[in-house]
């Protein structure tokens, strides 16, 4: 029936087409990320009132929660792309999975550091082996493990398959991170933002947080396009379309 869908997908999956497609979308995604990010920062740092218990220290939430959410979101994307790469052997899915790993590691690192900077004044400690904190640290090690395994092989496609396998196994950790605050009695506070119910947060604080969550999504898209494009050039170095780009950019 809808024969054009797989055809369209098939074309998009070809490296030169995706290279052009990603190059077209990347500036828009980055512009939206910067615009929404700036609005969210103004709302969060300037317009939102101080918290009645945590004072101004709570303002770390506007980067901590979006980064934490992205650490899980990027992992999920990496897991799905890894699955597609292993089952259907699609080169582009492999590249998307492997290039998501450093972005996910970056967001996980930000989450841990900002959480630590928030924990010191509120809990009196930089670190504690609480279920939420520990599972997030495991998530960082999973990202680093995927990156390490990918680069440990002489043949990069073999490395990508091994790393994709690790990524799929590690996906079990994502729900553990998410539900850790409900399953165990943690020092980490429970969730404040709830998509399906009422959030336990005033609108003045909630809208900058949601805006920043949207901004980080666009940032991820921009960063992923940027990384995938570069990796496709490295992967397809012998092909004519890459040679043409190399020659065109020599004049600049």
């Amino acid at each position: 029936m809808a024969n054009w869908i797989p055809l369209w997908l098939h074309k998009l999956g070809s490296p030169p087409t995706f290279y052009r497609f990603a190059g077209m979308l990347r500036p828009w995604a980055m512009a939206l990320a910067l615009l929404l990010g700036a609005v969210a920062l103004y709302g969060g740092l300037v317009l939102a009132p101080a918290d009645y218990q945590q004072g101004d220290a709570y303002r770390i939430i506007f980067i901590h929660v979006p980064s934490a959410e992205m650490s899980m979101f990027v992992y999920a994307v990496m897991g799905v792309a890894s699955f597609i790469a292993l089952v259907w052997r699609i080169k582009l899915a492999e590249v998307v999975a492997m290039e998501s790993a450093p972005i996910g590691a970056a967001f996980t690192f930000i989450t841990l550091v900002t959480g630590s900077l928030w924990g010191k004044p509120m809990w009196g400690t930089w670190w504690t082996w609480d279920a939420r904190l520990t599972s997030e640290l495991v998530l960082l090690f999973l990202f680093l493990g995927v990156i390490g395994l990918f680069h440990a092989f002489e043949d990069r496609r073999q490395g990508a398959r091994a790393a994709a396998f690790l990524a799929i196994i590690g996906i079990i950790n994502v729900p553990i991170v998410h539900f850790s605050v409900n399953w165990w009695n943690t020092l980490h506070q429970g969730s404040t933002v709830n998509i399906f119910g009422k959030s336990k947060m005033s609108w003045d604080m909630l809208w900058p947080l949601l805006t920043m969550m949207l901004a980080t999504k666009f940032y991820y898209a921009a960063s992923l396009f940027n990384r995938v494009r570069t990796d496709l050039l490295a992967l397809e170095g012998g092909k004519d379309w890459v040679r043409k780009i190399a020659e065109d950019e020599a004049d600049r």
Partner: protein
Amino acid sequence: MSALQTFFTVSGDAAAFLKMGGYAAYVWPAYAVFFIVLIADTVAPRVRRRRVLRELRARLARQQARQDRAGSNSTSTSPSL
């Protein structure tokens, strides 16, 4: 309000803003880490892209040179033989 007064009110507000209610030592480093890590994440693939294309051009130039040499050898040596 005079311009001078406005200046001091604004800078007073800015100072209060920068103090973050006494939590400046935690809030600003957190934001700094966020931006530094994401900027590094954006710059790294651009640097890699330039390196990949430079290496590819060098490889193509070597191939071209080898072909030229092979071509000139065959034309210059064949008449003398």
